[in-house]
């Protein structure tokens, strides 16, 4: 890949972003001392999302999905995954972007949330305790928060790399524990519990079902006969545009997730743009300075880390519970943590808006686009079967590029592209797409000068 077109693309994107910079609350943003125009970050994100939707519509179209239901279904699945990564990146940004706490256990904390929730809320006759879902989710959130604080406690007094080691090990311990034979199914006080081991575990039916069906636990085909007051008009509307009930359900779930993601963003912007966020930044920059100015840095670090872990767990639960949700330990391999880091670095660690952009761009262009492109190659050129010998490969008439997109090659190729993008970013824009900017950590605009002093200067 030649860097020039990519550079040009990035420059173009950057100029575009620069033109419409500024945070929602009319925050002034400076970059290299120049004051940028005030505009909404929301516009940037909206523009980006719109552009990506157009791209994916085109890709799906040429991939052979040409009816409304198929197109929507494909967009929905990309959107949902993007929202998940946005939320994970936002939570990690609190820990790493703000406080400089290197959490290599993102996958583990998500797993803690998901499996705690499952244990608490699965039916009592199954592998759970049969508690209501909100209790289960609260339990998952609290378990990850507490474990986060606990894992951080010994490591947080030491140098940053110890925390990284501890969390990475923690994450793997959790995953292996879930897979282990004793945890697969065990009985405590007559109650059978379990994680389902290496196989997948069906999660409690997601709350959207409750919203749409009167009898959510019945199969979808029967349940749809008895929709709720909310479900009824939605299903009718869906039918009008040719959407089946399962797609309606998934779209509703995605929209709800969008609101949760907005809530995340709102929460983390508030945390960041406050004296609390200011101390976190100071800890990231130089902890000794922060403590020499009287800040109890351990308290700040533990709170930031625990809250981040809780949010990661919450995201994990909402992700795995998506329509017809089931989960498996394989979801929580360390590569998940790595992906979230890539998303955060891509967007710009330390910036909340950057985390959002990073999550979206990462999922759309790096995780999902390759398989869309593969699909196009498949449908337009037919699947070229890989050559058997080197001679065939070099003399064959099949488009050579085709092999790269054939069969399983695409997932391997994805990692190659991921690597190239990371190397490129580290070399040319280590601060990420949004990292060069300043999101001042205060509830007020710090550049606004009090009148009395303005007169003097």
């Amino acid at each position, binding site marked *: 890949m030649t860097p020039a077109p990519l550079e040009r693309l990035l420059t173009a994107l950057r100029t575009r972003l620069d033109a419409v910079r500024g945070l929602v609350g009319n925050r002034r943003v*400076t970059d290299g*001392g120049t004051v940028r125009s005030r505009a909404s970050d929301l516009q940037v994100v909206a523009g980006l999302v719109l552009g990506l939707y157009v791209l994916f519509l085109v890709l799906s179209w040429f991939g052979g999905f040409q009816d409304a239901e198929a197109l929507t279904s494909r967009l929905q699945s990309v959107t949902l995954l993007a929202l998940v990564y946005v939320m994970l990146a936002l939570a990690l940004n609190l820990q790493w972007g703000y406080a400089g706490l290197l959490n290599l256990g993102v996958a583990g904390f998500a797993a803690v949330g998901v499996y705690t929730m499952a244990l608490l809320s699965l039916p009592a006759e199954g592998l759970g305790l049969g508690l209501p879902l909100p209790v289960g989710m609260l339990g998952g959130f609290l378990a990850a928060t507490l474990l986060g604080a606990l894992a951080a406690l010994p490591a947080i007094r030491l140098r940053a790399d110890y925390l990284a080691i501890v969390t990475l090990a923690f994450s793997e311990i959790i995953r292996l524990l879930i897979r282990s034979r004793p945890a697969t199914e065990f009985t405590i006080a007559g109650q059978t519990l379990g994680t389902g081991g290496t196989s997948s575990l069906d999660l409690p039916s997601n709350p959207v079902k409750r919203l749409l069906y009167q009898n959510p636990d019945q199969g979808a085909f029967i349940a749809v006969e008895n929709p709720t007051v909310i479900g009824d008009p939605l299903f009718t509307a869906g039918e009008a545009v040719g959407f089946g009930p399962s797609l309606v359900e998934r779209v509703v779930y995605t929209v709800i997730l969008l609101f949760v993601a907005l809530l995340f963003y709102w*929460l983390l912007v*508030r*945390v960041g743009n*406050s*004296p*609390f*966020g*200011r*101390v976190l*930044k*100071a800890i*990231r*920059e*130089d902890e*000794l*300075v*922060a*403590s*020499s*100015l*009287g*800040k*109890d*840095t351990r308290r*700040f670090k533990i*709170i930031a880390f625990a*809250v981040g872990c809780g949010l990661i767990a919450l995201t994990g639960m909402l992700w795995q519970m998506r329509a017809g949700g089931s989960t498996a330990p394989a979801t929580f391999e360390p590569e998940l943590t790595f992906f979230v880091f890539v998303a955060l670095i891509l967007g710009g660690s*330390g910036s909340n808006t950057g985390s959002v952009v990073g999550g979206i761009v990462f999922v759309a262009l790096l995780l999902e686009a390759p398989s869309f492109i593969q699909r196009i190659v498949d449908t337009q050129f037919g699947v070229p079967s890989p050559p058997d010998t080197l001679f065939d490969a070099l003399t064959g008439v099949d488009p050579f590029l085709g092999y790269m997109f054939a069969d399983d090659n695409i997932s391997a190729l994805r990692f190659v592209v991921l690597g190239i993008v990371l190397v490129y970013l580290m070399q040319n824009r280590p601060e990420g797409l949004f990292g060069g900017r*300043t999101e*001042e*950590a*205060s*509830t*007020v605009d*710090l*550049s*606004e*000068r*009090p009148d*009395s*002093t303005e007169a*003097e*200067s």
Partner: protein
Amino acid sequence: MSNDRHTAEVSEPTADSADGTVDRRSDETGEQAIGVDTDSGRPATDGPDTAETILAVEGLEKSFGGITAVDGVSFDVERGTITGLIGPNGAGKSTTFNLVTGVNAPDAGVVRFDGTDITGWQPDEIARRGLVRSFQIARELEGMTVIENVMLAPPDQVGERFWSAVLPGLRGQVTQQEKQLRERAWETLEFFELDHLADEQAGSLSGGQRKLLEMARVLMTDPEMILLDEPMAGVNPTLEEKLLDRLHELQERGYTFLFVEHDMDVVMNHCDPVVVLHQGQVLAEGDPATVRNDERVLEAYLGGRGPMSRSQGESLLTVRGLDAGYGSLQVLSDIDLDVGTGEYVTIVGPNGAGKSTVMRTVFGLADYMDGEIQFDDETIHGLRPDQIITRGLNYVPQSDNVFAGLTVRENLEMGAYILDELPEKRLESIYDRFPILRERAGQPAGSLSGGQQQMLAMGRALMLDPELLLLDEPSAGLAPDLVEETLDRVDRINDAGTAILMVEQNATEALRRCDRGYVLVDGRNRYEDAGDTLLEDQQVREQFLGG
């Protein structure tokens, strides 16, 4: 932590009560403990009326590895004074600062602030109690804007509580406080003439501006007492005047200052009283005039005396018009220097003159800016240290100069790392020169005493049989008898034909032994002559204690 033990055993202001706790060199206490001057040293002109002790340091001790950095330091600071803490390099000033502010925990001794025993407290607890410090090398939070840096400092901010920062009902109160703080922050920035940089990243400030930012930040914490570690280093003279005026202004408002400074003029004109540290102990204490005329202080800065001389061969190292520094900070300007084959050359000069930087630049460790460095008729500036050692030049850093976790033998082997095969003969000859190293060959280097570590560092540098050895303060942190021994060892290395370029705090001793000496002041050559001639020069002597 271990406060109980310390309070029980230390009550006298002198160091004697702490006997036996650490490996202190008892032979020097007899002569130096008398140095504690009990003169209250109350400011004659602008001090407060009551002499109330705000900070009391008693019998403070700290050693790192085999090196005793602070060895029973006791002094009091009275409320409302600007107390100066001075001493030659390695006297223990910065360590004392770190012990008082909780960055390091003392091995023994008590620190009392405003009536409270704060020994062993965490830095943040001490800061909240009202004792706040600045750092010798400004530690701005570079990824934050200047005004964010300043806004960070005020204590007890409502918005530092997580829920207040987040919950809608409570955030109003945070915003209100933020507005008040913002006003104060702008005023403070204006005073320090940083207001035009408020929105800049702190990392883009110049060295002097960083110092100012650091002071601004410290002031925003509403301290009772401020510890300043070399606040004037890198600040231009106009600004320095202004800062000093501000210090006096703040002093009149009731603030107390303790500051470490190497600019003798600043100390003598603005501090009262002055505490002089030497080799980890208080050498003298009193008003500037008393301290200045104290013969022991002069000696501490210059060392002992006695003549000797050697001759010079052909030119080996030639430095012409050298400018160098660190990053954008220029430390050296227009340095000229020569070392002949087999010659023994010493660089002396007051603290902060740039002596070590000369060494580091020659060895490729500091940032070369302009000029010329030639070794053996080959230009070596711009080369990396690993390239430079292959040319027959080696360097022994000032302290922390052995691999503590490796054994003595492994350390020596590291010295010959670039060779494919270990030069066994060379190793043997180094063992012969320093027999103690053979004895301890299998021990970790970290377990050696300070003097032995220095020996090991020299031995390691000699593994490649260099033509020129750069020695950065080989006697730093060593007891007087060991200083003698170490410098004798340097003589012997030189006698064996290796040229020496040495920076040494013990100026008199170094000048007495060397062939030629250079006096460096403020990063420039000031004098160059035979060692003895420099030694007798009254002007040279004055350079060390301010003119």
